[in-house]
């Protein structure tokens, strides 16, 4: 009788560690994450300085008609707009607003989406049917116009925009979580937990949610640029954050009149939106590759 127990292979301990390892190997993902970090630092720094009352590098709302529509120079690094306001300072203000809207709106949509999806997926049957037909109905509306209509009704303000974006963008998350839960519900370890006499809520929170965490995290990160773009679009159309408060969207809106004379009014906020959205998308994509565990799960 052979009674040896094989030495365990040297593999990274937790699934999270392995995901981290894979993420670290992804150069594009790391760069994108770096950009996201930089944006976050800028936003937080701006917020802190704003609270302390130190406008840096200048007050984004201070007008100076003697220095209006100037191209980038040593005083105004990214030029000035038609009222002589410093574009760089306004971009920083915009970063703060964009990221706030992005993160908080995603948090709202995640909360609703995960709850609704989990309920539908866990209970199944008519509960699932009822909820998912409702989700389908919401998904029939083009999201942006739904947001536009809702903001027109409740009035534009940062708070309203965040809530509205959050309230209309949870459907994708709900579908995803539902699909994950339908699979997880039938998985052997959930069945095993049931044979062990574990109670329903404990099965959901201990055995199902952590196994659905990876795809949820990925949609969350990919949801941030959607919210940022939605906010920029709204602000561009004048339904978003109201002037004089500067956001990337309304800087472009203000600048479009001077597009032939003052390229810096369009280019820099446009680049800011592009870089922010791209960084989040690429981070999300790298994250998706890093947490992809299907091949290992079997």
């Amino acid at each position, binding site marked *: 009788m052979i009674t040896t127990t094989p030495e365990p292979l040297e593999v990274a301990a937790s699934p999270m560690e392995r995901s981290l390892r894979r993420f670290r190997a992804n150069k594009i993902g790391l760069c994108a994450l770096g950009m996201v970090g930089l944006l976050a630092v800028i936003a937080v720094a701006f917020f802190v300085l704003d609270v302390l009352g130190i406008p840096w590098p200048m007050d984004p709302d201070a007008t100076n008609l003697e220095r209006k529509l100037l191209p980038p120079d040593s005083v105004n690094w990214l030029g000035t707009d038609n009222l002589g306001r410093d574009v760089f300072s306004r971009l920083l203000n915009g970063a703060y607003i964009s990221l706030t809207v992005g993160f908080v709106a995603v948090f709202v949509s995640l909360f609703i989406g995960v709850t609704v999806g989990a309920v539908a997926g866990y209970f199944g049957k008519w509960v699932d049917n009822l909820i998912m037909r409702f989700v389908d109905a919401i998904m029939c509306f083009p999201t942006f116009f739904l947001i536009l209509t809702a903001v027109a009704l409740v009035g534009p303000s940062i708070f309203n925009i965040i809530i509205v974006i959050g309230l209309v963008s949870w459907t994708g998350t709900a579908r995803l979580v539902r699909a994950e839960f339908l699979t997880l519900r039938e998985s052997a370890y959930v069945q095993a937990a049931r044979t062990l006499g*574990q109670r329903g809520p404990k099965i959901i929170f201990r055995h199902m949610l952590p196994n659905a965490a990876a795809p949820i995290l990925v949609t969350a990160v990919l949801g941030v640029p959607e919210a940022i773009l939605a906010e920029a679009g709204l602000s561009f159309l004048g339904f978003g954050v109201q002037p004089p408060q500067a956001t990337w969207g309304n800087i472009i809106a203000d600048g479009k009149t001077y597009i032939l004379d003052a390229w810096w009014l369009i280019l820099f906020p446009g680049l800011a939106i592009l870089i922010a959205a791209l960084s989040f998308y690429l981070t999300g994509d790298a994250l998706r590759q890093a947490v992809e565990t299907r091949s290992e799960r079997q």
Partner: protein
Amino acid sequence: MSQPILQVRNLCIDFVLEDRTIEAVKDASFELAAGETLAIVGESGSGKSVTALALTRLLPVPPAVIKGGEILFDGESVMTMDAARLRKLRGGRIAYIFQEPSTSLNPVYTVRSQIGEAIRLHRRDVTDVDAEIVRWLDAVGIVDPAARMHDYPHQLSGGMQQRVMIAMALACQPDVLVADEPTTALDVTIQAQIMELLGSLKERFGMAVILITHNFGIVSGFASRVLVMYRGRIVEQGPTEEILRHPQHAYTRALIDCIPQLGSKAKRLKTIDHAAIEAA
């Protein structure tokens, strides 16, 4: 003879599908004495797993419908138990181990976390959970249990995973252990080790075991009594020796003939001819 720990009388289970109804278990009756080893043998779809899950009402209802019959555990009707009592019964009194250990363990938790969960659920009196985990891992023959309990399931081999599942089931100190094809997913040498382990644990802790299998080969020498299921019906039951020597039902004979014999001159392995059995 003392009162059997488990009594199943005239159990009938249907699966109601959209277009038809399948009779999964038809009029099944059997008893299990405390500490006894019973094997339920039959091919896929014969109703053996359904019967086992029905013991603690684990079948999803619908589509499953328990049409009739009675299940008594320790004299108490399982059919009328409320949710709280059922949860105590599941795992605490009747524990299960399944075919596929790699999917029965949750990939995101360590062995310690999962066995600990079972212990905290059913044995509130245990204060040193870690020591208890180590004790059971050691009992199922895992080397260096104090280190291995921090492993995740994917770091263990299939045989070790099944040992962990067995440890988890035993840690709740059940009266009945239901082993649903515990070795089917493992290779043959590990199969032998696991069966040997189950046998010695049964001796040591004295629980009753229900072994569900399609393989008569592992039944002999393990189970004292055999129950043969065919198309939802119990076609034959009795002492293992008796059934192996003098199978009465054509299906039982066919199943026994399926076991490849060492040194047999036959060129092809035998298969089951259902038409012949129906005719018999």
